């Protein structure tokens, strides 16, 4: 028997898979100059974005996660992008690395990366949304939590006020 929790876990896994594909294809487009290849990949990128929105919509509205979760998920719209993390000297964090933003608000963001990071680490974050209409942001923040999902590390970053 599938419980509500099983469904949520399954659709969250699908959302994670879609995000990984969005990151991959957008990273490639950003590095390419060949129009033919870019155009081929743009259609894939648009579809992946649509898939991700449909899954989030299902999670938020159909699986009735509750108002607070729905609000949190809605904040994710158009918030996908790449992130360069540079450790803040005083925090003694390890080397800088590249990750992805999957959820952005005024107070923090959800970070995803193939490289692990630890709670308490502090970074300067250069956030570049995939949506070209959204501005590039620079924030200072601290890792609040981190967990491993499949082959990715996902965590919460709290921005400095």
């Amino acid at each position, binding site marked *: *028997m*599938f*419980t*509500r929790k099983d*469904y949520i876990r*399954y659709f969250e*896994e*699908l959302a994670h*898979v*879609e995000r*990984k*594909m969005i990151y*991959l*294809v957008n*990273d*490639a487009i950003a*590095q*390419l*100059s*060949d129009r033919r*290849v870019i155009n*081929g*990949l743009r*259609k*894939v990128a648009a*579809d*992946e974005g649509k*898939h991700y929105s*449909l*899954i989030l919509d*299902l999670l938020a509205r*159909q699986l009735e996660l509750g108002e607070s979760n729905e609000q949190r998920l809605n904040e994710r719209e158009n918030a996908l992008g790449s992130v360069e993390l540079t450790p803040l000297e005083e925090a003694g964090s390890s080397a800088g690395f590249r990750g992805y933003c999957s959820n952005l608000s005024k107070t923090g963001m959800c970070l995803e990366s193939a490289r692990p990071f630890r709670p308490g680490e502090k970074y300067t974050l250069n956030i570049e949304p995939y949506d070209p209409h959204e501005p590039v942001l620079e924030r200072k923040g601290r890792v609040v939590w981190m967990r491993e999902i499949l082959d990715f590390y996902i965590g919460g970053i709290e921005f400095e006020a």
Partner: protein
Amino acid sequence: MTKEELLVMLRRGLNEEEKAIPLYTKHLGATLFLSGFKPELQVRVKELLLLLKKESESHAKVYGELIASVKEARQDVY
């Protein structure tokens, strides 16, 4: 981006799409899957999973065609 870097990226993309397809369909044949949902929602979820599967197959084809054309081309920089 060099030809080799592009081919690595395209193969990764193809691999991700091919790994995702069975994930979309793994529960569709199970009688109990979605049994906790209202009938209209069951239909909607099935339609979504089938759309994801169909479009992932289409993306895998796009990646495959790009891999073939890039491999054949004499171009070194993309």
